[in-house]
């Protein structure tokens, strides 16, 4: 039943996007169709993103820029608010359950949020064609990363580095599958701090959040257990995206007619997706997300290069 629902949802998603793409070239389309179509599209993105375990804005920016008539500046501004709102609504539960650690969040967020300002300024200063080429390359790269990355549930780590020890980063969480508390530490904090500077720049530049990069760095580089990596990444976004979101807001690159339906659609969709997660097979959905990212990434690349197909 759930599989049928998902097939139908995919069909609605495709139909919506085709209709939207056709409407984009039709001046007679009533204005209210766009925010309504955006609400439906982002609702479906929210479901798919939650089922696939990815952040909504990594799908939002490439898909909306491919099928809707909005300028990329406004889509990126909205993308940051989408990521921010999703993070703010998810982080409290994760923090209260110790699936996220503030002692880990704070040093990483400081560098990521500072560098995201640079990324936002860079993104707002580049022409749309260049940004589309870069976005297309990035999204295609993320799709490839999703294909090949192998996260580790509880990685083996060496001795925590001096900085991680000095900052006393570590903690424990309850593991339901074993009924035990799991203690954890991290290492390679200095390397992670450098990587988070780069993540911040990309997040600010493209407005796509950064969960796709946060989790591998936290899990594979720093050795945080996967649950801690996912929870900490979600809590990090509330801070990283805040700085960049302010740059876009001050620049006037946030239009409520685009941002508000997007935020509401993705938040509602991700809540439905989380409920479906208990009964569906996320692995197959992950492949669909990879295909969607590849398609949106290549389309953005083709648009940016000005190639007519």
């Amino acid at each position, binding site marked *: 039943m759930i599989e049928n629902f998902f097939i139908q949802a995919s069909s609605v998603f495709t139909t919506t996007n085709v209709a939207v793409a056709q409407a984009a070239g039709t001046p007679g389309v009533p*204005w209210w169709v766009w925010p309504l179509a955006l609400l439906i599209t982002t609702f479906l993105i929210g479901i798919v993103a939650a089922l696939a375990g990815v952040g909504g804005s990594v799908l939002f920016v490439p898909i909306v820029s491919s099928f809707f008539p909005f*300028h990329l500046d406004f889509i990126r501004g909205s993308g940051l608010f989408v990521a921010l709102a999703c993070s703010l609504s998810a982080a*409290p539960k994760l923090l209260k359950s*110790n699936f996220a650690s*503030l002692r880990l969040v704070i040093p990483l967020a400081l560098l990521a949020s500072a560098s995201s300002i640079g990324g936002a300024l860079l993104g707002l200063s580049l022409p749309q*064609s260049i940004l589309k080429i870069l976005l297309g390359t990035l999204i295609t790269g993320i799709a490839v990363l999703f294909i090949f990355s192998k996260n580790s549930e509880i990685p083996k780590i060496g001795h925590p580095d001096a900085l991680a020890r000095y900052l006393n980063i570590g903690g424990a969480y309850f593991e339901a599958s074993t009924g035990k508390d799991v203690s954890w530490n991290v290492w390679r904090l200095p390397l992670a701090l450098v990587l988070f500077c780069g993540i911040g720049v990309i997040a600010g530049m493209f407005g796509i959040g950064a969960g796709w990069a946060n989790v591998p760095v936290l899990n594979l580089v720093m050795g945080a257990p996967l649950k801690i990596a996912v929870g900490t990444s979600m809590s990090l976004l*509330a801070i990283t995206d805040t*700085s960049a979101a302010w740059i876009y807001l001050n*620049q006037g690159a946030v239009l409520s007619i685009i941002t508000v339906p997007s935020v509401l659609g993705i938040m509602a969709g991700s809540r439905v997706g989380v409920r479906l*997660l208990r009964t569906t097979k996320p692995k197959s959905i992950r492949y669909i997300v990879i295909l969607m990212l590849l398609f949106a990434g290549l389309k953005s690349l083709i648009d940016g290069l000005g190639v007519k197909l």
Partner: protein
Amino acid sequence: MSSQTTVLSSVKSAQSQENIAQSDVQSNVQGNAQSVNVSPEQNRYASILLVCSWAGIVVMVVTFLLYMGGLFNPTVKASDMPLYWGLSVHKYALATHAPSGWNWLSMVNHSDYLNLIGLAFLGSVSVLGYLSLFKDYLRKKDLPYVIMVGLEIIVIVLAASGIFNISAGG
């Protein structure tokens, strides 16, 4: 290290690791979170995020409905937006005489700018949480975290201040 290795060997799963993490996060969050201690400052920070983010979202929705309903004399009506949303932010500002930085505050009597209050509030939630953390770490005399939290507040306030301004690309 050895305890981690033990846990590693005890955790078996048929599904992909990431998907397991996500589904288990959901179930743990709902049921079994009391077995590990959460620091009081983390708890307080989470509560601030929870209350303020929902308050911001409610304000955002209410003001958006006012705008879509054409109330409070919007400077650019929702029905006219298709003329402008395809422009770059720079061209949009020129075409609609949109204010930059915090100048929109002086125009909140227009519903399209009233809309920004909810969004700006969402952008302030983390700072409110960090102010609480700053006070808690100061009380605990946790100097590294006092400094980092203080710097983060400065970073976000600088970003929000509007001092970073740039001409938009094409």
